[in-house]
């Protein structure tokens, strides 16, 4: 049987890649689980490593930093999603218009996506948000206003701004392709049906974009939950910008409590999966319709 032969041959040839990927994923996962049940503080020779059961899990959740960090995470994810989708739709509409230099403008719009998170956060911190030499400070002074100390006065908003700037191109790109796939006759039909521009947007364009928007939400949520570099290089987790990811980082690397951090990591995995299941359902429903 040729097909059966080729099928088993295919399995054999795929095996290295599958094993590699499984190892890549499973080993860290299993190690995280392993550590999460242990007392393990490498820098404290006085504390003997050993099994502690669910102690780490209980301590992580009952710590006073836990709920605020969940809240911060949700605010940052929600804020960035809101900004990127609203602006993304508007930008996509704009870029869909025929204009001079369209190709160049599109590349410029996409550019922020190629900048590393660390770099973009540093750029924002030093060039825009610096209270003395930042561009915003100059702008504020030009209007006679007192410069805002962005990262300590509006720390969460600043981080949302930085993250949104990075993810806006992604949202714009996906929404732009979605807008371009809209049948122009539908717009013309609605125009003949007497729909003014705003109604055309809400009744025709937005429903057409709903699937693309859900996909943007899905993908961005998964990436935004793990935002780290932007916080690390700007506030360092101070001023209430400590997200769940950042809290785990602090537990493991700053307090050197590997066990406690690992338990936090497991919570993060569960949270991400809950979100993913939710979003998968929404996307699935959308794909059926």
């Amino acid at each position, binding site marked *: 049987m040729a097909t059966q032969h080729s099928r088993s041959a295919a399995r054999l040839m795929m095996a290295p890649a599958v094993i590699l990927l499984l190892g890549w994923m499973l080993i860290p996962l299993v190690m995280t689980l392993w550590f999460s049940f242990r007392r393990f503080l490498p820098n404290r020779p006085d504390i003997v490593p050993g099994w502690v059961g669910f102690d780490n899990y209980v301590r992580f959740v009952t710590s006073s930093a836990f709920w605020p960090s969940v809240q911060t995470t949700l605010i940052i994810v929600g804020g960035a999603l809101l900004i990127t989708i609203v602006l993304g739709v508007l930008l996509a509409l704009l870029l869909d218009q025929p204009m001079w230099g369209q190709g160049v403008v599109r590349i410029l719009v996409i550019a922020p996506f190629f900048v590393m998170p660390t770099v973009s956060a540093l750029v924002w911190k030093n060039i825009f948000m610096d209270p003395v030499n930042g561009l915003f400070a100059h702008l504020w002074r030009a209007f006679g206003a007192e410069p805002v100390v962005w990262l300590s006065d509006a720390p969460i908003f600043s981080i949302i701004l930085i993250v949104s700037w990075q993810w806006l191109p992604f949202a714009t790109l996906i929404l732009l392709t979605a807008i371009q796939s809209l*049948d122009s*006759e*539908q717009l*013309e*039909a*609605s*125009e*003949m*049906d*007497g*729909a*003014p521009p705003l*109604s055309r947007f809400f*009744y*025709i364009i937005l*429903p*057409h974009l*709903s699937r693309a928007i859900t996909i943007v939400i899905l993908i961005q949520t998964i990436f935004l939950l793990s935002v780290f570099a932007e916080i690390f290089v700007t506030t360092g987790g101070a001023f209430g910008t400590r997200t769940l990811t950042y809290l785990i980082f602090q537990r493991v690397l700053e307090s050197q409590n590997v066990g406690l951090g690992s338990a936090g990591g497991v919570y993060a995995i569960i949270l991400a999966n809950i979100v993913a299941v939710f979003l998968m359902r929404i996307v699935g429903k959308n794909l059926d*319709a």
Partner: protein
Amino acid sequence: MGRIVLDKVTKRFGSVEVIPPLDLTIEDGEFTVFVGPSGCGKSTLLRLIAGLEDLSSGHIEIDGADVSTVPPAKRGLAMVFQSYALYPHMSVRKNIAFPLRMAKLDQAEIDRRVSNAAQVLNLNDYLDRRPGQLSGGQRQRVAIGRAIVREPSAFLFDEPLSNLDAALRVGMRLEISELHKRLKTTMIYVTHDQVEAMTMADKIVVLRAGNIEQVGSPLELYNRPRNRFVAGFIGSPKMNFLEGAEAAKHGAHAIGFRPEHLGISLTEGEWKGTVGVAEHLGSDTFLHVHPESGGETITVRVDGEFSARHGDIVYLTPVAEKIHRFAADGLRIQ
């Protein structure tokens, strides 16, 4: 009411003039068909009337009012698009109700008109479905429904049947004709299919490269084509043309005669030729005859019972009074 007058209408895209100055009057209640080969500007002309394209110059009047710069929605016209352009996320009911909602009619009136339209178009069972769940013909009917609820002064159809299969097309053709008889509203219908034009129209406008070649009733166009282009475009199979010596005998640059206006005989006749391909339709047979004198094949329409095989010698004689004569510039000679 729906009398539409085009006065020296032109349309340019950049430096390309797709519609040179054009005058046309469409009477109230008339079923007018714009027909022509693809790229002749018939769709552009329709879109100019609809207001989806801006005029480069000239005026369009609907019922005496100049609407040249009036936005599409305010012209009181309804359009059915080639792709139907239904709103995929709305149910059939909402699709049909959309123009009424935009016009801010009250709900009772909307419901009344929608159910009327559904009645007329046999859509009652599908009102709560999405367009994606309908067949091509049903979608077409929804698109027409969305047009009729507005009670427009004229309907515009942009090649509405070209996405349907042949059998459905014939059915929808009848339905649209019937709708016109019932509503008695002006309809402008764009097609590249001369059969649709002939069967549906009160008035056919034959277009070529943005120019009106001829305006007239289907039979006028068939019997008295103004020039060679119209003669060749209207009628199926196409009219045969002969140039040179044969045409000179009739005092013309070219003569044309329709396949159905040729006598055929196995023994004697004006032109001798060999039968090439024979297309049997049952009721008729189209013979493609290669004339002995050379030149283009002549198509003959004969009775379905006529038996002629490939390679047979036949003699053809045109019906004298059905010969169309054309001058060197393509115009008909009277």
